[in-house]
């Protein structure tokens, strides 16, 4: 548990909290980006360079941008008059707190079986590439198919209705 861990944890949790609590939707999206960046730093701290950079590239470079585009396209940056939280927000909060209690309890209870500091694994991009093209080639193909399907699906869903009616 280094100082860096606590700093990154504070940054990530603060970003996550801001992302769900702030009133302005665009601020929420920007806070979400902070949380994503914190997670990328976590990945780097866990010696998963490739995953960390992929996280930045995909989440900050694409997903965050998609979110802000969606917010602006739906005029979501205007704060609604009747509050930003749902009518039954209390139930949601209780469920989330319950989930956290269960998860936290489980982690703390199993503390003694969890491994302590282990040797730093050395993972090169070459190994990841070999794994992707060898053992994980089927999942890779499926993900490729999924992404293509998602792209076509997103285009069709977002196409103007009048055009599709023609």
């Amino acid at each position: 548990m280094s100082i860096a861990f606590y700093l990154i944890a504070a940054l990530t949790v603060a970003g996550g909290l801001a992302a769900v609590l702030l009133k302005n939707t665009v601020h929420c999206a920007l806070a979400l980006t902070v949380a994503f960046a914190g997670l990328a730093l976590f990945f780097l701290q866990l010696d998963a360079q490739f995953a960390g950079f992929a996280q930045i590239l995909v989440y900050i470079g694409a997903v965050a941008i998609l979110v802000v585009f969606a917010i602006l396209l739906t005029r979501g940056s205007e704060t609604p008059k009747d509050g930003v939280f749902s009518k039954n927000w209390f139930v949601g909060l209780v469920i989330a707190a319950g989930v956290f209690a269960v998860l936290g309890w489980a982690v703390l209870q199993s503390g003694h079986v969890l491994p302590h500091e282990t040797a730093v694994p050395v993972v090169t991009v070459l190994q990841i590439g070999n794994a992707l093209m060898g053992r994980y080639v089927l999942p890779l193909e499926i993900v490729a198919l999924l992404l293509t399907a998602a792209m076509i699906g997103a285009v069709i869903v977002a196409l103007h209705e009048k055009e599709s009616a023609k």
Partner: protein
Amino acid sequence: MTPLSGYLIVAALLFSIGLAGALTRRNAILVLIGIELMLNAANLNLIAFWRYGPHPEALTGMMFAIFSIAVAAAEAAVGLGLVISIHRHAHTTDLDRMNRMKG
């Protein structure tokens, strides 16, 4: 507290924050943001278990995380496409007001 449990606690906290956001916010986009947070918390778990697991050289957890990132990108694209399409149809992104099955 072992290093691993620290990461697991943070991941659990993030997951709960995301869940709370997804359950309490009215705006559909913010619900998606909550879901993204939950997915990311799961990724953190995967990477942490890979790092402190018995066989990091097998790359299982890392691969899972990378695939999860790819799937999350697809999910975000389709989810936001749906939100935009619904907004065009119902002129709102407020989930409390989307209470009709019929357009």
